[in-house]
């Protein structure tokens, strides 16, 4: 938690104090602030929501959005669901793999991390990807890397 002290995180979580129903939103808030949820934040959320750490940990591990380590500067989501399979996502995924990115492992290389996702809702223009939240239709390696270089530049 380099830039945030425990105190400032508790401050951010303030509106949810004592609310057991805010575990998910608290985790989302921390990840929005820090880019990931450090282990110590689980204790802070438990304390703030007045629930056990186990309950917070249970929610944290259920949802695939949450990270326990900081993300790369650029996060590329690549759709692996059916509509994109029908539009040639397997080819794209294998080309990305050849460039050193395993979307199933989500390894980081040159400030870029590529991850699998199940559907981005752009199913008529597949293969579909998202670069730091910006959607890319008819995705190719070229289109993806042109978007990532705009961020890393």
């Amino acid at each position, binding site marked *: 938690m380099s830039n945030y002290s425990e105190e400032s995180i508790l401050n951010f979580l303030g509106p949810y104090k004592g*609310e*057991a*129903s*805010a*575990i*998910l*939103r608290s*985790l*989302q808030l921390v990840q929005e602030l820090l880019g990931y949820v450090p282990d110590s934040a689980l204790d802070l959320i438990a304390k703030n929501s007045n629930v056990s750490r186990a309950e917070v940990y*249970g*929610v944290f591990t*259920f*949802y*695939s*959005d*949450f990270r326990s380590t900081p993300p790369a500067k650029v996060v590329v*989501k690549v*759709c692996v*669901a*059916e*509509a*994109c*399979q*029908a*539009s040639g996502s397997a080819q794209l995924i294998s080309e990305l793999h050849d460039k050193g990115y395993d979307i199933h492992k989500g390894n980081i290389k040159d400030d870029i991390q590529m991850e699998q*996702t*199940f*559907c*981005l*809702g*752009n*199913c*008529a*223009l*597949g293969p*579909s990807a*998202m670069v730091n*939240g*910006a*959607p*890319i*239709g*008819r995705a190719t390696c070229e289109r993806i890397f042109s978007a990532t270089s705009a961020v890393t530049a």
Partner: protein
Amino acid sequence: MTKVFVPMDSAALSMGANEVAQAISEHAAKNGLDVTIVRNGSRGMLWLEPLVEVETPAGRVGYANVSADQIPELLSAGLLNGDSHDSCLGIVEELEILRNQTRITFARVGIIDPLSLVEYESHGGLKGLRNAIAMSPAQVVAEVTDSGLRGRGGAGFPAGIKWNTVLNTESDQKYICCNADEGDSGTFADRMLMEGDPFTLIEGMIIAGIAVGATEGLIYVRSEYPHAIDVLNQAIAIANENKLLGDSVLGSGFKFKLEVRVGAGSYVCGEETAMLESLEGKRGMVRAKPPIPALVGLFGKPTVINNVMTLAAVPMILADGAASYQTFGVDRSRGTQVFQLAGNILRGGIVELPFGITLGELVDTIGGGTYSGRPIKTVQIGGPLGAYLGTESWDVQMGYESLAEVGGMLGHGGIVVFDDTVNMAKQARFAMEFCAEESCGKCTPCRIGSTRGVEVIDRIVAGEDQAKNLELLEDLCEVMTDGSLCAMGGLTPLPVRSALKLFPADFGIKVEVK
């Protein structure tokens, strides 16, 4: 001043719409052109995106697949006057594909500025809400019941009956929950409506609140939809400012509060009870039913849970009357359905039509066949849990019961097209794999069955003891179908069985498939 429309729908953004809008504004400023750029939703003809439209005295003229680089050329070719060009489509509303549709839920999408309440109202918005305010709650519910509107999320349960249950349940607090966790691959109608006409959803939810006596609404949107979340939040802020939401909706004395809640990457949270758990901040574990959420829902209170498309159909039903909505459709599938053409398709996007159009007409006539130009092998309707159908089902009418008759499921109305290069054993395996990945883990058939399913399919494909393993797979599918708590495990056998039945050769089957 010339109005130029550049969509801000995610699909248009994915093809460079923001860059196009920026290029137009830069060139207009540089050359002293009087241009106003409106960021509309998408018309749904996604293969034409970015589709730029220019307002002319004759109507809105469209230019297809515009790129930012093309802007100087298009402007000198007279784009602002709607002059002809290779990419010019003519008057957009006169395009055959739009003229042949019945746009009720999507009446305003692509036409208005999604965040202009003034335009929303001048295009027929809020009429349904005003009518509802003047009626008794029971009358509003009756109107929805009489319209024949059924849940568009997949199950097809009559909306009016659900509302009536909540109306007749006494409670100090009731909720309206909109399920916008549109996780099915091949579906994107919810997203397009939320991005292109969010006030329709907001109005539908307020009407639902008035009808059943609920004062709080929540929209559960998946995190994969950042643009939809952004538009909804802006629209809700505008609605609050204009007293459309708040302590007295349009001065009626009815109270209605609305909030967006964001999911966190879990498919099963699209199942209504898992969604309730997630809204309560917990793991998205499916609840056993009964009790149904209409009686014991969010925080144990009576709750209406409807899909985006269901709630968005409500304003028009209240504005034009149940009878008007009833006139569309076939049998017990009344009204219109927003079909989504996806996957390997030439002309992909959404088309809103009365129920009853055939599958073949949708895929071939409207969709134009595959994008790859190869023959179609199969389509999957209704998302990852929907059945695969072959071209022999081309004559089936699109409706809840008619699709069920051929072993299919309408689901959310998404159709994913595959060409002849697809291997159906891989698709069947993926269905099981997906279920294993996304299962909440509460019930055994789904949690363990999905993993065993992957293994059995692998053995069949490897040619190991095929007769025995086919029997085992069939047995497993039966247990998952009958024994799972929700549709996740319960419907996963649908794509598996249909793939195996239609394309046994892809599994390398050398014995007879029962």
